[in-house]
């Protein structure tokens, strides 16, 4: 015998009505965002990442150019940034033939643009680490010879406090002595190409912290031993401290080495060789 079995009809009605009312409440609460999300697309250019900043991004980077969203342009990274100062991302446009230039930007970063990459003799694919001020789309845009920009990206949740303590001993005399030092290595790839990984010692200051001016690497040029330019990377402030880069180049002759040259925005030079 349950208590409700004893209830009079009127009471049962009240109970039923109240229960029904209660039951509909969560449905109403959740139906609003669902309805918004399923609204019919306004145009082919509706941002798949649904960022309120997209229109600003489009104006800033692609005004006057043709720009399309393209799922073949990938940004691979964590969905949640564990360390907001070191968020690993790999931007990959290798599914699109003929990419001449890649740019990477994060809509909600105080400095939006993170990097420009001319792959040249490398795959249009670059691994590096970005600083994120808050949750943001991280996007890659790839330009082909016809001038069309193809854009892909992913939301990365960064909670500001989501940073672990980095173990970088910068600020020390050793850091100053090692500024722009390159530590790199080449690995043969199974597909016959060559993988280049390198880490360059540099604070990559954004200029947004009080009293600390922007101080960052602005160009890295990778050439072969004969002096032919293979690839060019132009990092900006949002690239993480002591930046590391991963590139996949075409096959090199056994024993070949690569020259890494470049400079930061204060004119300090980068000049190093990398071997297997």
């Amino acid at each position, binding site marked *: 015998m349950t208590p409700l079995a004893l*209830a009079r009809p009127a009471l049962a009605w009240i*109970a039923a009505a109240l229960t029904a009312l209660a039951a509909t409440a969560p449905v109403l609460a959740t139906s609003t965002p669902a309805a918004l999300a399923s609204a019919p697309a306004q145009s082919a250019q509706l941002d798949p990442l649904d960022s309120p900043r997209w229109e600003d991004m489009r104006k800033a980077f692609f005004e006057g150019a043709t720009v399309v969203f393209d799922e073949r342009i990938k940004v691979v990274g964590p969905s949640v940034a564990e360390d907001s100062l070191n968020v690993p991302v790999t931007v990959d446009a290798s599914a699109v033939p003929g990419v001449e230039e890649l740019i990477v930007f994060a809509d909600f970063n105080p400095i939006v643009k993170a990097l420009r990459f001319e792959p040249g003799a490398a795959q249009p694919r670059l691994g590096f680490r970005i600083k994120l001020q808050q949750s943001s789309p991280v996007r890659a845009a790839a330009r082909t010879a016809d001038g069309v920009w193809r854009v892909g990206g992913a939301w990365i949740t960064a909670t500001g406090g*989501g*940073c672990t303590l980095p173990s970088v001993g910068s600020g020390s005399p050793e850091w100053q002595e090692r500024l722009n030092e390159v530590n790199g290595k080449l690995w043969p790839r199974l597909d016959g190409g060559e993988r280049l990984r390198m880490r360059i010692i540099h604070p990559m200051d954004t200029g947004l912290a009080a009293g*600390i001016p922007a101080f960052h690497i602005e160009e890295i040029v990778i050439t072969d031993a004969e002096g032919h330019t293979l690839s060019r990377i132009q990092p900006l402030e949002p690239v993480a401290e002591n930046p590391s880069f991963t590139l996949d180049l075409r096959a090199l002759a056994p024993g070949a080495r690569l020259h890494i040259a470049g400079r930061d925005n204060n004119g300090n030079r980068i000049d190093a060789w990398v071997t297997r």
Partner: protein
Amino acid sequence: MRTASTPLRRTDAAKRPPAAGSGAGSAPARAPAGPIHRMARAGERMSVVVQRLSMPGRVLAILWTCLLLLAAPTHAETFDYRLQARELAPGAWVIVGLKEDFSFANGGNIVNTGFIVGREGVIVIDTGSSKRYGEQLLAAIRRVTPLPVVLVVNTHHHPDHFLGNQAFPRETLAALPDTLAAIRSEGEGFNANMYRLNGDWMRDTEVVVPTRALAVGRQRIGGRDVELLALGGHTIADLVVVDHDSGTVYAADLVFHGRTPTTPHADIPLWLAALDTLERLPTRLWVPGHGEPTPDTRALRQTRDYLGWLAQTIRSGAESGQDMTDLFQTPIPQRFAGMALAKEEFRRSVVHLFPAAEQSVLEAQRTPTPK
């Protein structure tokens, strides 16, 4: 302007946001449990009461139930962690937390806390994730014994292990010296992060740094034969409490069980060495920092197995030229599939541990090359 010879340098403190780190790592905030779930729970509680009432009383009670269904206080709204103390052996108690990340739904109840009841007093091992947790832990102790709390230890500086300190007398709070220093320097950042992750459960929670530095070794505390061990590897300092009277070891976060170990401040070789030390202890019962206690060393062995695999995976990834995003794709071996949050914690650990592995591989190339 800077020059090459005298680059201006900011201090790290000026630039870095507070560290998030957390006992179980940090996580995005999740929505609280849905209303339907809550109502069911409130209904269950009410029906027990209703059966004992007279007919008019029943009518009122049913109406009251219906009203409560609309505005049911949930354990999330009453902020009741529902801590259940379990006696593993005479005088050796544990409160086992959920094998989850911090969330609005669990309020940070993801950690194991413990207490040992001696003839003269109580030793408390970790105070939980918030002021409320600490208060409810003390209430759980009071349901078991009226004896005074004589010692409260924070096993390490992760926030789910010390943010309940407010509930206990200041003079009873103690930790290893490096833990005190770490709470002092990182505690506020952790606390801010915990408010973000756990929401209102954290209300009024403040960092209380223990004043006493613990003396390690075997000693009588509260009339109990206990041993304090200073180890490390999960963090800079990890305290283990051994209750020799019952053969129980409170291993804190050096041992995880059925829940993937977290590594925001880990030194894996040191951690593995600590596990070797622990395995030699003549104890029967093991209380991990997260996950179910065990009557044998299986939790310890699981932790060691996972950490060994993790370190090896990251090292060989760095040596073979992989980047972090390549490592993210590593399949988790089947033997770890049953551990909660395996995929999430593995990715976090890659972020924590890969940069050092990468640096050592790349700097091994540091021989000067001809220009």
